[in-house]
């Protein structure tokens, strides 16, 4: 159990140091960076994947793109992709790192948006057309609300991926909480490694809780069956 004692000592050393709470390498600054990079990558991925998923799901054309991207994203090693982009584009700005982050974040949202739209009960779709709605209206007022739980699931899975990849990206020079791990490991400062690791785990859990809340708030009561319809 000696590792447990060492573990707590490291946590006290890391979180108890007043210098850790200010400056560009302080916890607040690194936390904000991690949030910024993750949010930027996720937002770009949503902007690309949701319209594409809606289009493919609604028209039924290009399903191959969805299947291939999903399989490829799972098989591609994130670290390899990050190093490849940095070697290709240089490390002058954050973009060489943001591009692979976005590339890996797109497929989960794309697949789930596509599956969500495709899985809508055809009778429901026909009923909407029967009521005189046009293609765009059917999509916006019927298909998207019904598919929303799956679209949000895609975004949640993508967020998991992005938070993890942002951490790994510290290796290729990106800021964020991963810096504590990479820099601490390089200098054998295990208080920094352990403290940073705990922060990232907490960060990932908070993101999950926020997504669960978002799902409760945004999904229509009729779709989530919180409202009993007879």
């Amino acid at each position, binding site marked *: 159990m000696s*590792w447990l004692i*060492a*573990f707590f000592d490291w946590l006290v050393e890391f979180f108890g140091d007043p210098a850790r709470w200010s400056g560009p390498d302080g916890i607040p600054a690194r936390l904000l960076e991690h949030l910024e990079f993750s949010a930027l990558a996720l937002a770009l991925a949503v902007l690309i994947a949701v319209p594409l998923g809606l289009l493919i799901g609604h028209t039924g054309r290009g399903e191959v793109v969805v299947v291939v991207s999903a*399989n*490829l994203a*799972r*098989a*591609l*090693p*994130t*670290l*390899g*992709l*990050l*190093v*490849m982009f*940095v*070697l*290709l584009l240089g490390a002058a700005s954050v973009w060489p790192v943001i591009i692979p982050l976005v590339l890996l974040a797109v497929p989960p949202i794309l697949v789930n948006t596509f599956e969500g739209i495709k899985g809508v009960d055809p009778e429901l779709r026909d009923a909407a057309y029967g009521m005189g709605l046009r293609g765009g209206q059917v999509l916006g007022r019927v298909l998207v609300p019904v598919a929303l739980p799956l679209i949000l699931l895609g975004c949640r899975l993508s967020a*998991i991926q992005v*938070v*993890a990849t942002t*951490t*790994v990206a510290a*290796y*290729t020079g990106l800021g964020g909480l*991963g810096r504590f*791990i*990479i820099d601490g*490991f390089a200098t054998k400062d*295990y208080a920094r*490694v*352990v403290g*940073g*690791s*705990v922060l*990232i*785990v907490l960060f*990932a*859990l908070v*993101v*999950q809780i926020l997504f669960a809340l978002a799902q409760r708030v945004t999904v229509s009561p009729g779709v989530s069956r919180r409202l009993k319809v007879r």
Partner: protein
Amino acid sequence: MGDGPPSIWEWIARNWDTGRVDSIRNLLTDHLTMSLVPILLSLVVALPLGLACVRWRWLYQPTSGLMNIVYAIPSLPIFMLLISVTGLSQTTVIIPLTFYGMAVLIPAVVDGLGSVPDHVRQSAVAMGFTPLRRLLAVELPIAVPVVLAGLRVVAVSSISLVSVGALIGQGGLGSLFTRAYQNPFMPPVIVGIVLIVALALVADGLLVLAQRLLTPWVRARKGRA
């Protein structure tokens, strides 16, 4: 070094079997060990746990909640936290990957057993199958496609996730990426990515083949239709 950077084929030939621990061949073996062990281990653990969740329904909600949390935790910090317990060893990579695998496979086992039609279960009971024989000869075979679909996801993502272990010196082929980053050089990155994706494709293909062999009735039914 000769004049000019070597081509990718020259680089492979020169580094394939150097006799050192970081030859491509050794990295490939390490990579296979660190991905195959979690794949098999997660299946072995997820089967009984999934069965328990089906037998005692109240277990499923907390188990799947816990597995959702496990799945959301990034691998790198977990490797780092485990170092103080298991050291800079392959075990440090294998343990978290096993848990990620379980997070996918436990729901797959539960869904798979849930996909057994009720009339089939009742027929088996009526034919006098004991619960154990019913499970082994009827329910598990019917669950195979759903469980194997989960196992394909686990296999492919484990093979690619191992490479993150390179950041603690245990990444199999992933250490080609850290080597390439330290003395900026593209061939190792390309070789690493291609080999990892190829391994994932082979594993995926083998599991598809396994499914064909384990569920011959699916093809027979398609043939008649």
